């Protein structure tokens, strides 16, 4: 699908498209049959758009098209001409995670991560429209995304936690990103300039700086299952 890399076969016509992608204008020549998912991944190098089924069921490829969730495997790139596309890569700001992303981390709402981009975008759309969704509303918004690893409950929790973070008003003026040191946000130590925030455990041997991100000394929720369901004597050794 790369322009210029296919041989001059003559029967692979292309069309010009121009779209706003995560806030920037992108122009390209694409085959009409090129899926938006493949365009974003291969042409725009946005690998966060994952492809799990190519037939519109799993939702891993979910992006926002003019602010609405779509399955990008069911949209052709040419259909995005003149429109606005948002992917997960556009959410984080200066290394700070978007509250939804931060909440997913906090709530252990991802394991293999392949579905995560899709869930995050679905959650972002929901929370833009509804800053205090009920559990039912959360489930309805996420019903088009499939996860094979988590069993979903931590994902519901994450979205509700993100809603709390956003609606406590602790957002920046542009309505974008939560101050990471605020309660209910992520648990890293503070703002960073490049890459992941200081103290954000990345496994890349970042300087320890006394942060609590990995250690979560303060934030250990104890029973990460239903907190009010554990009876006295849970977690104790033996029975």
């Amino acid at each position, binding site marked *: 699908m790369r322009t210029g890399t296919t041989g001059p076969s003559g029967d692979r016509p292309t069309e010009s498209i121009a779209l706003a992608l995560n806030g920037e204008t992108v122009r390209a020549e694409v085959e009409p049959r090129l899926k938006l998912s493949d365009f974003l991944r*291969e042409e725009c190098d946005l690998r966060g758009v994952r492809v799990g089924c190519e037939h519109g069921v799993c939702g891993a490829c979910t992006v926002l098209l003019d602010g609405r969730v779509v399955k990008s495997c069911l949209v052709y790139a040419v259909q995005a001409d003149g429109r606005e596309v948002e992917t997960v890569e556009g959410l984080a700001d200066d290394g700070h*995670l978007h509250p939804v992303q931060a909440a997913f*981390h906090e709530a252990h709402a991802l394991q293999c991560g392949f579905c995560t981009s899709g869930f995050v975008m679905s959650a972002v759309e929901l929370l833009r429209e509804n800053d205090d969704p009920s559990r039912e509303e959360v489930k309805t918004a996420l019903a088009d995304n499939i996860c094979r*690893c988590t069993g979903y409950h931590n994902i519901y929790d994450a979205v509700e936690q993100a809603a709390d973070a956003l609606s406590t008003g602790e957002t920046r003026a542009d309505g974008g990103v939560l101050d990471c040191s605020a309660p209910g946000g992520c648990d890293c130590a503070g703002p960073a300039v490049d890459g992941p925030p200081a103290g954000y455990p*990345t496994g890349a041997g970042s300087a320890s700086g006394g942060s609590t991100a990995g250690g979560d000394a303060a934030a250990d929720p104890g029973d990460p299952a239903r907190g009010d369901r554990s009876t006295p004597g849970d977690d104790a050794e033996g029975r």
Partner: protein
Amino acid sequence: MSGTEAASDADADATVEPERESYVGRSVRRVEDYDILTGRAEYVHDITPPDCLHMALVRSVHAHARIESVDTERAEAHPDCAFVLTAEDVRAEYNPMPSGLVGFEEWSLAGDVARFAGEPIAAVFATDRYAAEDVADLVAVDYEPLEPVVDAMDAREDGTVIHPDVGTNVPDAERFEFGDPDGAFADADRVVEGEYSWGRISGVPLETAGVVAEYDPDEDAFDIDCNIQLHTLVDDTVYETLGYPPEKVRLNVPADVGGSFGTKIAIHRYCCLAAMASQQLGGRPVKFVEDRLENLQGGDMHSTERDYRVRLAVDDDGRFRGLDVWFVDDFGAYPRYPVNQVLKPLSVLTNAYAIDDVVYEYELAITNKTCQTAYRGFGVPAHLYALETIVDEAARELGIDPTELRRRNLIPPDELPYRLPSNNLYDSGDFPAALDRIVEIVDREERVPGGLLDPEVVARRREEGYRRAVSPSIHIEPGVSGSDWTDRQRSDRDELPDRSRDDVAELPEHLRGRIREDGSVEAFLATDTSGQGHRTLVAQLLADELGVHPDDVSVSYLDSVEAPTEYGTAASRMAVMLSGAAKGLGEQLTGNLRQLAAAAWDADVDEVRYRDGAVVHDGTGDELTLAELAAEDADRTAAGEEPLTAASYDYQHPATGIEAFDDALRQKYPVYPTAAFAANAPIVEVDEATGEVEILSLYTLRDCGTRLNPMIVDGQAMGGLAQGVGAALYEEFGYADDGQPQAVTLFDYLLPSVTNMPDVELYHQETPSPFTATGAKGTGEGGMIDGPASIASSINAALADLDVVTDTIPATAHRVRRWIREAEAGAAEVDGDGPGATDGDETTGD
């Protein structure tokens, strides 16, 4: 093992050490998350080298057919076609792929005969996947259809033998007899019999198989990026096929793999074909991403499909006297390495019950279906389902409450560690107490006014046509498989009784680590991960061992050449194996660092102590930090000495140090030294009209010993339970009579989703294992192992007065509806009227 509070002493006395907080036992958030959440994580699908070609496969449209001709002329003429690979090409230069059983020859591309719908016949290569599929469409295959064998029971008849060279469709079978089953069955008051079917399902991870292969003509070696599971164990499925020694075929698995659940253990075909093409093309990289339709239809990744005949010998007072389990397992067209999926149930042979006299017999059948691979639970989910279903039937025949019947037969706590008839041991656990506890929890939470099991609510729902019930049950999850037993079916079984303990060759867990220049720690795993959070776990473990912060520990992966052969991530092994390996590595490294510091100070090793990321001289109080020690070591290694800041450790499998496991080890019986367990009580409601089963709430009390990271453990349990729900109610790879697969999209194969994932009330307790260093037990397969059996039991409770039992999994709506109608029709015939009046009770409880 849970974290302790740091108790720092304000008046710091050099000899009093403040207790350090432990990271192990705490819900440390994952290091893997940031990259995944921001879209930076690189899965193998994301790797596209410049000038890469893309592969597409031409797959058999028939379940069984002679391949008369394969015409690639039009395909080769397509301007975007770079290359075509045929079965002839493969046969001319390469080898068949290794098989799970002796005597089978399976080629990467089917040559003379196609043996399952979806079997690859030819491979084409183009500059992008779209073009490659255009080209693949131009390959013309002429088939002569043959009679397909689509049912394991038919296959056993050997009417049509699928592999004439093998001579039978049942290439492997074994009967195990423990104790005196004949005597037990003869002596018991009665024998209850049942026939049950476990449907063909699989892991279906969200990420399909993928590979990028590159041949290096100068080195005459292969570099293969792929998402294969157990790459340091099953690399032989690639290098033997290519005809190269292991050191010439490097399998790299990215740190991020989008789920596997066992299914990616057998994706070697794709690696082989891509590597072959790259070699034929002089080294151009070749990429293949399996698409979802391929994955569901012919992706070499279906799992256990069984027909069971179970007999339970039982006395009228409810005591189980004997168990006889026979089953045939439909392995599809070729047996792969996970053939031992039929054997693992021996490790939990009688579940949580004490039964000494047991027969366990299996037949492994070949059919014209997609080949079997491993799937979470590895044959145990089906076994527990069959066993618990016969228990429910026995309860009905005896007129004993099913929960009470179970309770009477549970292994008493004072018999742990308990030796099964099959020689595996259950390490620890009070099963009766756990069963009582889940009963008590459900009573307290739901058998109350307004609760789900409020008798008035249940009665009202019954009048409305909904049958609500719960059946508590308890299930063992065997953990930490040994490796030596896994090739039992490729061994000479007649010689096993004479095998000595010294012949047992268990693969240890390898862990490598080093101190970097900046004093941070770098560790290397010798296996792969697909979402379990191993990097976080190892960071926690080494943080504790080395007295540093988890942020200071980075964890990456060794490829198949760098790493020794080892078992790795499967069979609920890694919590135990990694914690043992980390402990050993920590000791190794701290010992080395003390040596290093002592040398630097010209002191005696006994005079220096390792503490919290530094070595301290007891006498002088001098200290060398990790960074300083790294600098010291750099000087040494520059001068040609062996580094002391690097070390590796090989952790021996825990069963190897415990004499009680010698019998099982020697005779290649499945060895799983830890027994996690779960007491489940799924509250179900069956719609009589539609047959739909709704799980109103799934109560579960889970125990996997010490939880190294409770958050990760509970996440695994929830995910496993979701798969258990899918298996019990929704998922199935059906086949038509002509062998055509019916579930080829995700519209057909219904994965548990937001709309059908029930509420889960997860309770936990910790009974440490006496056999492992941390008390942790293996737990990765939990939820899937116990979920289906317990859901089926609750359905049995809901349909008890119709005398219907869940004899087929999945209990889809159409099946349940049919069972209800047939039962009601049968009752009408017998009684001359409708089904008997009910008392609106869900029948089980305490």
